[in-house]
C-alpha cells in the first residue's frame, strides 16, 4: 500500500447551532483518486475547509506527510501541498486571467513584487497543460462559468500540489470538458498526486475514483474501495433510501400549445428558434455551454428581450419585454446561479418564498395579508420538504439542495403555468435531485408546462418527454426522451456541423 499522505482523525466542528462534523476520519494515500460523497449538508465542504486550513476544527488532528497539526493556516496547507478548487471557484472577477492563475503561486512563493512577464508565462504554461485557450489579459468577470472553472483548475495544478481537492469540479463543465479533466486527473495521479473530489454525479464517481468515503449527518458512514460499491449501494449509503429512475411520459399533446415560439432571434444569442410547449409536458433544451441555451431562457423570461420573432401563449401573441411581463403571463424561471440570481441569501426563507408572489398576498386595501403570507410560506416549506427549524432564518443557513427548493418554492407559490428551469439540480445531491425531479413531474401532471435547460444528459433524458438540442445558437434537432441514448444525445450536442 502506498504511503499515507493525509490523515484526518476524529474531526469535529460546530457552527452557530449546527454540528457540522462529528468524529470524522479520512485517509488519503499517495496517488489515489478519492471520492468524498454525501448528501447536501452532510459536512463535505466543512471537512475540506478544515483540511485546507480555512476553518479551525473544534477537535481532531490532521496529519500531512507525517506532521501532525491540530490546526492549519491556509498558508501552511498550501505549503504542505494541499490545493483546493472551491465550488464557488474563489477567483477574482476584477483581475485578469493571468493574475488569477498566477497569483496564488506567487503568494506561496512569498514574492513581494510582481513581474508581469513571469505572471503571464506562468499562466500560459498552466492553461496549456489542460489545453485551454483564452486571452490572458481578459478580466475574469467577462467570462463564462465554465471558463472560470477551467481557470480555477489550471491555478490549482500550478502549485507544487501533493493533494488536489475539488469540490464539485464538474458542475459547470460539458461532457467533453469533463473527459478532458479526467484525463488531467489521471495524468496527475501518474505523477503521484492524490485527488480528493466531491461529486453528486454517479457516473463520474465510478468512472474515476478508486476509493470512496461517504458522510451522512456529519459522521462517517463507510469508506472503502470503489470496486466494492455499485450504484444502488452507493446511493443507499448516502441517503439511506433507494431510488429508481424511469422515463417521464407526458400525456398526449392536445389543443393549442401553452407556449409557442416562432423564429425568435437575438444578436449574439440565438437565431430562428421555433418550438411549442404543451401543458403537462416537460421539454428539455440541451446544448453545450455557449450554444445559446441560457440566452434563450433569459429571453423567454424577459431578461434579454429578443430582437425579432413571436411568442404565443394559449395561441395569443404576447410581448415579453420584462420579467414583469413574463410573470403576468404566469411564467417562472429558476436561474442558473442560485446564489446570485435566485436567492437573497441574508434574507429570511419566508421572504424569499413570497417575493415573486407578493401581489397575490395583499389585502383589499393593499397591505400585506400576514395570514395569507404565513399560510403560503408554510404550505411551500411543507410541500417541497425544505428542512429548517424556522422560516425566519436566512436562506444562507440552508444547504445547497434546500436552497434550490426555496428557489422552486418562490416560483411555485405564484402558481405558474410555465416553469423554466436552467440547471435545476446543479450542485444538488442525489436524494434532493431525485426529490426535485419528482416535484417537477408532479407539477407537469397538474398541467404546468415545464422547460428544463440542462447539460446533465441523464437528467434531460429521463425527465423530459421531448428534447431540443441546441448548437451555435440554433435548434438543430428534436428527439423524444425515451427514443435516444445518452451517447447519441452527447454526440449531437457536440458534433461539428
Amino acid at each position, binding site marked *: 500500500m502506498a504511503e499515507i499522505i493525509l490523515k484526518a482523525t476524529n474531526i469535529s466542528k460546530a457552527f452557530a447551532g449546527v454540528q457540522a462534523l462529528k468524529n470524522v476520519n479520512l485517509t488519503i494515500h499517495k496517488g489515489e483518486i478519492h471520492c468524498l460523497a454525501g448528501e447536501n449538508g452532510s459536512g463535505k465542504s466543512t471537512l475540506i475547509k478544515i483540511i485546507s486550513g480555512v476553518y479551525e476544527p473544534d477537535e481532531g488532528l490532521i496529519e500531512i506527510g507525517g506532521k501532525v497539526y491540530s490546526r492549519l493556516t491556509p498558508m501552511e496547507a498550501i505549503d504542505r501541498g494541499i490545493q483546493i478548487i472551491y465550488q464557488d471557484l474563489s477567483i477574482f472577477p476584477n483581475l485578469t486571467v493571468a493574475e488569477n492563475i498566477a497569483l496564488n503561486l506567487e503568494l506561496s512563493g512569498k514574492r513581494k513584487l510582481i513581474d508581469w512577464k513571469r505572471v503571464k508565462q506562468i499562466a500560459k504554461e498552466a492553461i496549456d497543460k489542460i489545453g485551454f485557450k483564452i486571452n490572458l489579459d481578459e478580466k475574469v468577470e467577462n467570462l463564462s462559468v465554465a471558463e472560470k472553472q477551467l481557470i480555477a483548475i489550471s491555478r490549482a495544478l500550478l502549485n507544487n500540489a501533493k493533494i488536489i481537492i475539488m469540490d464539485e469540479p464538474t458542475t459547470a463543465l460539458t461532457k467533453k470538458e469533463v473527459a478532458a479533466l479526467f484525463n488531467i486527473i489521471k495524468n496527475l495521479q501518474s505523477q503521484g498526486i492524490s485527488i480528493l473530489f466531491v461529486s453528486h454525479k454517479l457516473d463520474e464517481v465510478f468512472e474515476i475514483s478508486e476509493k470512496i468515503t461517504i458522510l451522512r449527518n456529519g459522521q462517517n458512514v463507510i469508506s472503502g474501495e470503489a470496486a466494492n460499491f455499485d450504484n444502488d449501494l452507493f446511493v443507499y449509503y448516502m441517503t439511506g433510501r433507494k431510488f429508481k429512475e424511469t422515463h417521464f411520459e407526458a400525456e398526449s399533446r392536445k389543443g393549442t400549445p401553452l407556449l409557442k415560439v416562432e423564429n425568435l432571434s437575438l444578436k449574439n444569442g440565438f437565431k430562428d428558434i421555433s418550438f411549442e410547449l404543451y401543458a403537462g409536458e416537460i421539454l428539455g433544451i440541451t446544448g453545450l455551454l455557449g450554444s445559446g441555451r441560457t440566452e434563450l431562457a433569459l429571453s423567454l423570461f424577459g*431578461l434579454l428581450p429578443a430582437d425579432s420573432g413571436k411568442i404565443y401563449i394559449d395561441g395569443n401573441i404576447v410581448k415579453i419585454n420584462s420579467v414583469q411581463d413574463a410573470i403576468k403571463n404566469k411564467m417562472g424561471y429558476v436561474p442558473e446561479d442560485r446564489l446570485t440570481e435566485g436567492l437573497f441569501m441574508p434574507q429570511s426563507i419566508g*421572504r424569499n418564498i413570497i417575493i*415573486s408572489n*407578493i401581489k397575490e398576498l395583499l389585502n383589499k386595501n393593499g397591505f400585506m395579508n400576514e395570514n395569507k403570507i404565513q399560510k403560503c410560506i408554510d404550505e411551500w416549506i411543507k410541500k417541497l420538504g425544505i428542512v429548517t427549524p424556522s422560516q425566519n432564518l436566512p436562506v444562507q443557513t440552508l444547504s445547497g439542495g434546500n436552497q434550490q427548493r426555496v428557489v422552486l418554492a418562490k416560483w411555485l407559490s405564484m402558481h405558474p403555468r410555465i416553469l423554466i428551469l436552467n440547471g435545476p439540480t446543479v450542485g444538488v445531491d442525489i436524494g434532493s435531485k431525485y426529490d426535485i425531479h419528482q416535484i417537477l413531474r408532479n407539477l407537469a401532471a397538474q398541467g404546468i408546462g415545464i422547460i428544463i435547460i440542462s447539460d446533465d444528459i441523464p437528467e434531460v433524458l429521463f425527465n423530459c418527454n421531448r428534447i431540443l438540442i441546441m448548437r451555435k445558437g440554433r435548434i438543430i434537432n428534436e428527439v423524444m426522451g425515451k427514443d435516444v441514448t445518452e451517447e447519441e444525445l452527447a454526440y449531437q450536442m457536440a458534433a461539428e456541423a
Partner: protein
Amino acid sequence: MKGFNLRHLINQDSNLLRLFIMLFVVFTIMSAVKPHLFLKSDNFISMAYQFPEYGVLSIAMMLSMLTGGVDLSIVGVSNLSGILTAIMLSKMIPQDAAPGYILFMIILAVLMALAVGTLCGLFNGFVISKIGVPAILATLGSMQLFTGIALVLTNGRIVTGIPIMYSNLGNTAVWGILPVPLILYILSAIVISSLLSKTSFGLELYMMGTNPTASRFSGINNTKVTMLTYMTSGILAAVAGLIVVARTNSAKADFGTSYTLQTVLISLLGGVNPNGGFGTVAGVTVAILILQFLSSGFNMFPSISNFIKDLIWGLVLILVMVFNYYSNKYAQKRAISKRSKEFAQKTM
C-alpha cells in the same frame, strides 16, 4: 395593532434591544448628573421641538440606504422646497388677507412643497436607476443642483414675511405637550414604517437592497422601486423643509447643511446596513433619541463645548458596533454549546 407591539419588535431585532439599552443608559446618566435640569418637562418638550426636523431627514436617509445607496441631497431638497413655500407664502398673500384665504394658501404651499420634494426625488431616482450613476455621486451632484436653484431663486438671501398662522405651526404644542413638529415626525415614522413592513413595496425595497440581481430575476422592477424610494425620500425631505420653515419663520439656501452626515450617522447607529437591505424606522427613532438626549444633556454643562458632543457621538457609534460584534459572537457560542449538547444526546 399587533405591529406596534414593543416586545414583538424587540424580539425581532436584537440590535433594537441593544439600542434601547443604550438609550436607557444615556437617560440614566443624564438624569443622575443633572436631575433638576434633565428631568424637567420643559426639557422634554424642548427636545420634542428639536429633533423632528433632522428626525424626518434621518428617515429619508434610511430609505435611500436601504437600497444600498445614499441620499446626500436631502438637505438641498428640504431647503429648496422650504424656500418655494416661503416665497409663495410671503409674496402671494396680501397684507389684509382673510384667515380663510391664508389657510387656503398655506395648504396650497404645503402641497407645492411636497410636489417639489417628489420631483427632486424622482430626479435622483432617475439619474441613479436609469442612467446608472452611483447614488453617492448622483446625489452629491443633485445636492449642488438643488442648492444652486435655491441660491438663484433667493440671491442667497433669507426669505421672510411668512404669515404668523404658518410659523405658529412650528412653535405650538397641542395640549401643551405635543409640539406640531413632533406630530409630523410621528406621522412620518408611522407611514414609512407601515410602508416598509406592510406593503409589497417595502418588501421589494428590502429585497432589492439585499441583492439587486436576484430581485431583477424575481420580477421586481428595480427601476421603479429605486425611483419610488428616492421619491419618498424627497417627500420626507420636503416635510423636513416645511418644519424648518415653520420653526425658523424663514427659509434659506443653506439651513441645516450639517444634517447630511448626521443623518447618515443616525441611520448607521439605528442599525441600517450601509450595503442595503436591512434597517427599520424603530431603530432609527431610538438612535435619534439617543442623539437628542446626549445633545441636550451636554448643553446643560456650560463648561463642555459642543465639540465634545461630536467626540462622544462618534464613541457611542463605535461602542455600539463593537458591542454588537461581541454579543453576536457570544450568541453564536451559546447556540453552539446548546446544539452540541442536543447533538450529544441524540447520538448517544
